[in-house]
């Protein structure tokens, strides 16, 4: 642990402790770190590690229920505790800027972009004229890559995509040329490709201005790629900090090692025995939304899927990857029979799944789903036992006792055990809930499971455990799986075959090793090159690896 204060440190946090005012519970304990001018420092930690609170308290922007109980924060040599409200406001924005995670809520929806950007300038550079401010705003919007800056001035945030909003956010902060930028999970809500563009932009802009960056993230590979130093936090404490390359190569604290070893890794390819009939066969599937037949006219809907064909073999895990809006969730829902196809067929074990009738009922029994958000996918008023047992209600010739036994058996299979049967979802952690969701899906021994981003809402270490459980169950029961994910690292670990989607079309599909090592389609290449990977490098350490050299020209698909 390095507690040395660099001479001329820009930010010097010493022994910072934060507590919940009402209960006195400490949420951040004795945290010390420094940020030098122009340096990029990453704070990594899982939820509840206190990383966001620690960073927000630098600007005294922690929630009102949280109070600083000890420690000093020095910025540019001044102790921030002694600042008047006015001096604190001058510091906020003017010297320290902040970028937030959720581009959907971090810009005011009822105010034009122009006004939101200009108001910061108006506060911090009063001498400037309105025209001068406008020119500065336009220049900054151009620099963050907004195509039509003049048009953007009068536009509202909802008229922009998530990535564009995050660029605007960045413009609004960098406009004031702060000495320190605090970026709280700045790209977590964005697609891989957009994520990389925004991060490159952020790093480029801050370098150009000599702005230091304190980057908070749960994503180790992202932090590894862009930071000079890394601070690892856990349960309100710093467990380890050091230069990024050293820390990754030779992590000293067991928690850091656990974090690194929890990063998804490619498993050896499994042989999938070829069979004549695939378990799922999709032919020329078209799904349209919002079309309606009026009294006098027929409105064509928005086409979400443009004639897709895809098959899944018994025991095979097929991953569906693509950016948001690519149609991957729509495809999953259509295959699950939750969305009526406008054209095309879906066959299960050679027979059309139909709608209604015995074949439909048979398919519904054999096709189960696991959803992304374990907080909303479990009915909060049902016990875990009832949730898992519900799927057994329609099984003929199965006694009450037998059903209860099966529920307990499945619960122990997912690592929860009998005592959990009487609990309610709110008593469980996110990881435990996702285990329940998986138990619910496999309790009837289905032949096919659709998992829609099953681990996206989970922390790194929990995610590793759930993925391991999933692979274990899959190997034991041999169900086929359609695994929908935007996380290429996870996909690389679990998939036998990969299907890449873009704009409602399949642009590439093939076995995992081929797609990851020799992608054919430019979009696949862009997707893969956006994500840095960490590969093991002895002693529990990792090394940063780019799947593609930046120099490799990649055509941007139109």
């Amino acid at each position: 642990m390095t507690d040395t204060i660099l001479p001329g440190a820009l930010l010097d946090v010493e022994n910072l402790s934060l507590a919940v005012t009402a209960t006195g519970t400490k949420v951040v304990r004795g945290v010390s770190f420094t940020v030098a001018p122009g340096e990029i420092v990453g704070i990594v930690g899982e939820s509840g590690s206190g990383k966001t609170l620690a960073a927000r308290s630098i600007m005294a922007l922690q929630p009102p229920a949280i109070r600083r109980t000890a420690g000093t924060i020095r910025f540019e040599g001044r102790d921030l505790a002694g600042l008047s409200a006015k001096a604190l406001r001058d510091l906020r924005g003017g010297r320290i800027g902040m970028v937030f995670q959720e581009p959907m809520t971090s810009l005011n929806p009822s105010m034009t972009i122009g006004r939101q950007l200009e108001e910061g300038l108006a506060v911090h550079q009063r001498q400037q004229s309105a025209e001068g401010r406008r020119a500065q705003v336009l220049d900054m919007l151009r620099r963050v890559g907004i195509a039509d800056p003049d048009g953007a001035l009068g536009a509202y945030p909802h008229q922009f995509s998530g990535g564009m909003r995050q660029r605007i956010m960045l413009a609004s902060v960098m406009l004031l040329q702060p000495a320190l930028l605090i970026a709280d999970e700045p790209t977590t809500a964005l697609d891989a490709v957009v994520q990389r563009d925004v991060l490159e932009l952020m790093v480029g802009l801050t370098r150009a201005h000599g702005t230091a960056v304190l980057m908070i993230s749960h994503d180790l590979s992202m932090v590894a790629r862009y930071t000079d130093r890394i601070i690892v936090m856990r349960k309100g404490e710093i467990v380890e900090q050091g230069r990024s390359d050293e820390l990754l190569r030779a992590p000293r604290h067991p928690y850091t090692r656990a974090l690194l070893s929890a990063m998804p890794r490619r498993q050896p390819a499994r042989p999938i025995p070829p069979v004549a009939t695939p378990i799922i066969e999709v032919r020329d599937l078209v799904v349209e939304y919002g079309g309606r037949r009026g009294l006098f006219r027929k409105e064509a809907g928005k086409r979400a899927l443009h004639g897709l064909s895809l098959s899944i073999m018994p025991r095979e895990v097929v991953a569906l990857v693509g950016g948001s809006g690519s149609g991957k969730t729509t495809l999953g829902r259509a295959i699950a029979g939750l969305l009526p196809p406008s054209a095309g067929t879906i066959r299960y074990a050679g027979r059309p799944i139909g709608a209604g009738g015995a074949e439909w009922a048979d398919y519904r029994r054999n096709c189960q789903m696991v959803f992304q958000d374990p907080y909303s996918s479990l009915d909060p008023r049902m016990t875990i036992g009832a949730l898992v047992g519900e799927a057994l209600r329609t099984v003929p010739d199965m006694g009450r006792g037998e059903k209860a036994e099966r529920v307990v058996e499945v619960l122990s299979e997912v690592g929860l055990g009998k005592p959990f049967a009487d609990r309610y979802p709110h008593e469980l952690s996110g990881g435990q809930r996702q285990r329940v969701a998986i138990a619910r899906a496999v309790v009837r021994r289905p032949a096919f499971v659709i998992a829609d981003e099953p681990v996206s809402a989970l922390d790194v270490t929990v995610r590793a455990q759930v993925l391991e459980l999933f692979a274990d169950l899959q190997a034991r029961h041999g169900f086929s799986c359609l695994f929908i994910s935007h996380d290429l690292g996870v996909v690389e670990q679990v998939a036998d075959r990969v299907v890449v989607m873009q704009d409602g079309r399949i642009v590439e599909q093939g076995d995992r090793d081929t797609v990851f090592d020799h992608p054919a389609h430019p979009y696949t290449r862009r997707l893969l090159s956006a994500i840095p990977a960490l590969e093991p490098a002895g002693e529990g350490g990792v090394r940063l690896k780019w799947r593609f050299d930046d120099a490799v020209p990649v055509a941007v698909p139109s």
Partner: protein
Amino acid sequence: MLHFVFKRIAMAVPTLLIMAVTVFVLIRLIPGDPAALMLGDLATPASLADLRERLGLDQSLPVQFGIWFGNVLRGDFGISITSSQPVLPLVLDRFWISARVVLIAVLLASLFAVPAGMIAAWRQNSGTDLFLVGTATLLYSIPTFWLGLLLLLLFGLELNWLPVVGYVSFSEDPRAALLYIVMPVMTLFLHEMGVLIRMSRASTLEVLRLDYITHARAKGLSETAVLWRHAFKNAFGPTWTLIGLVLGNLLGGIAVVETVFTIPGLGRLLVDAIFARDYPVIQGCLLFVAFVYVAVNLVVDLLYPVFDPRVTAE
């Protein structure tokens, strides 16, 4: 935009039609004969039959409805059975008397309640918050007639500052009119303010939690700028909708308050007409009330995009 307005108005037509039929049928289900009531003790079977024929009450229900509705479509709401005045001018006259009280009261209540609710949210769980929420809860828990009576006792009888009962129109004597209107306005104002404070506080709390508020603070804006420039417009939407509902409700009749202060408003007209079985007036009143309700809410919806550009009038 224009398309939306037409669609909304078109959607109101079935509502008004159902309203017309229901009102028409319901009043006739209530026992009591207007002819018998008008003639009182002097009624003989012959004079009764004669009067019923003159009023058109001897016709079958569907025929009566057809005649009445046909006239309504031409703007003729009929003639009051009791006072022989045309219904529409009567309803409009009385409506303006009520509307004046309601509009002033709701406007004042909004002007006080919206900032009060925002301040309570901004200082959540503080003494200020507790005081504002406590006052709001107390205000809307008191029934308006009781609140009205208390005001009468205090300002009218004890302090002798304000006239106790009655109404003077503005055209006759503006100063007296103002004095007479103070207590009814205050009654409604206090009651509705309680409701609106709660709403304004709740929606402001929602907004203050969002990142763009923290972003505004992180830009170095003062708390005043954060509240008025960033929180106000976003928090006002739900309160605005509630103001529309309150306005629609109150404009439809404040019979209780009118009775306490003996104001000859729309509510009193309706109550009196019901007691007298004055069918044309009852029908006219209720249809007009339904129309006002629909119109107020249409205006509220059309103005919503002003506060939230994400909502377009489509």
